[in-house]
């Protein structure tokens, strides 16, 4: 019991510690592919360090929502990290608190407060970005739901650990058409939710074209650091769900030995590295979609996820 609590803390620390590194590696790879040298992969840590040591300016016009949002955005991915399999394939001490839907709602809560805070400041670009994020959000919502329902239908459970075990123990289910379609739909969802290129340009500095970034424009100092770190952790958590639950559910520690749990860290880092390469290829080979084409992109994701659901329902009723 004590051990699983400790492992759970290790899992949270893993997300906390490696999220900036993930962002750094991602941007470095992108620069390399564009034949530039790019900043060091540790640059996000330095950015966070710098922001934490700066003064924070809070407008007197804002309300409590603006104050609490950075903390919420920061804490929510940590909550989700304690629910999902990051290092072990058995539920840890805090995993009883919620299933995958709870994780989705937690992440949605962070996004909701970020949008509220952007409106709260009265900065003209904030509400614009917030409304665009909501647009992407409500288009992504049905896809999230259908993906979760399909996964829980196939695995007969919404607990991520059981789903992960299902794919490992049953290669026929792993290779089923439903699973392939699910993977594609979830990948498109990650691109949309993480503000990656076909939907949003994370490196753009033009306020009118921003979707995800402009929500954080008004934050400074510690607030900005927490928002940034929270965003990076959210993306790492989504990646962990994608890799550990759906795409490559192998290489997790299956017993309580300390060595095995620690060994899972380099394995998941390796998986994330390979995923980063794929992500960079996607981001470098596609152009950002026009705002009203995003509905087409997420519409396609929705269609794919519903096709996955149909395929799984019909194949299981026949079998």
């Amino acid at each position: 019991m004590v051990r699983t609590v400790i492992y759970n803390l290790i899992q949270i620390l893993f997300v906390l510690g490696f999220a900036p590194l993930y962002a750094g590696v991602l941007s470095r790879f992108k620069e390399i592919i564009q034949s530039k040298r790019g900043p060091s992969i540790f640059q996000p840590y330095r950015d966070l360090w710098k922001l934490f040591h700066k003064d924070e300016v809070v407008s007197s016009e804002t309300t409590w929502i603006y104050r609490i949002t950075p903390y919420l955005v920061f804490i929510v991915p940590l909550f989700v990290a304690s629910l999902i399999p990051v290092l072990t394939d058995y539920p840890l001490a805090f995993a009883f608190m919620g299933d995958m839907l709870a994780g989705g709602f937690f992440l949605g809560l962070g996004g909701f407060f970020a949008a509220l805070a952007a409106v709260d400041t009265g900065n003209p670009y904030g509400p614009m970005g917030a409304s665009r994020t909501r647009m992407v959000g409500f288009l992504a919502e049905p896809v999230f739901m259908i993906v979760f329902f399909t996964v829980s239908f196939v695995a007969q459970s919404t607990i991520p650990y059981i789903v992960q075990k299902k794919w490992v123990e049953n290669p026929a289910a792993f290779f089923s058409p439903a699973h392939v379609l699910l993977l594609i739909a979830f990948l498109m969802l990650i691109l949309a939710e993480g503000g990656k290129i076909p939907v949003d340009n994370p490196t753009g500095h033009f306020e009118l074209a921003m979707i995800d970034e402009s929500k954080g424009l008004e934050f400074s100092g510690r607030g900005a650091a927490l928002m940034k770190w929270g965003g990076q952790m959210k993306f790492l958590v989504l990646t962990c769900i994608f890799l550990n639950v759906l795409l490559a559910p192998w290489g997790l520690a299956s017993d309580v030995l300390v060595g095995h749990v620690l060994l899972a860290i380099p394995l998941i880092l390796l998986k994330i590295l390979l995923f980063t390469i794929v992500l960079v290829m996607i981001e470098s080979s596609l152009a950002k979609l026009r705002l009203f084409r995003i509905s087409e992109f997420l519409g396609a994701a929705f269609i794919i996820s519903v096709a996955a659901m149909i395929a799984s329902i019909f194949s299981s009723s026949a079998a």
Partner: protein
Amino acid sequence: MASDQTQLIHGLNAMAAGLVLLTAFGMVATRQVQGVMRFFIVQSAFLAASAFLVGFSRGSIHLVALGAITIGAKVIAIPWVLKRTLPGDLYERREIDQVINIPSSLLLVLLLAIAAEFLVGTLVSSTTDPVVHVNLPIGLAGILIGAYSLIARREAIPQLVGILAMENGAFFAGLSIAPDLPLIAELAIAIDVILIAVVIGVLTRDITRTIGTTEAATMSELKEEPQIWR
């Protein structure tokens, strides 16, 4: 060990089936002529992969040969023939104006896929062969989606790809239920498909040369004047 192997092959076949369905959606979702063509090539490649896998698991040399014919005809010959017969500007970059916009078409296509699963459901339940369970509904969905893009597309080449996609769907369904179709029939079909591509390619080239467009919607006023066909 042997059952593990067949299970793996069936798994890979199912994966190829999922990707065939995905590329069929992709053909409906893309605007670019080039993109539609690429999705068709990828779909044919997965089709051939499925033929190889099913042929291997059933020990049927016919299906393996069929996969090879598919690669030769659809992955190599048809794109090459179309590239040769069609003028480059037609083939390369053109946005297609569609009768029904893309999100609604995708929803319609989804309904077609559901209908295919539903229609085949009772038929499939009479057998326990996993290949039939996977290939038959997705093959039927491929036929319906191909027919849909034949109707909804306005440009000549995506319409041609619609015909070819229907053929792909029929092939995909057929390979699960008729594994020992004589090779000569399959060869005839493959050559037939290439001929269709050549004929439509040449026709399209002549139409663009005399009228300047291949958009079917603008051809409603086409009169039977002899000079139009030179």
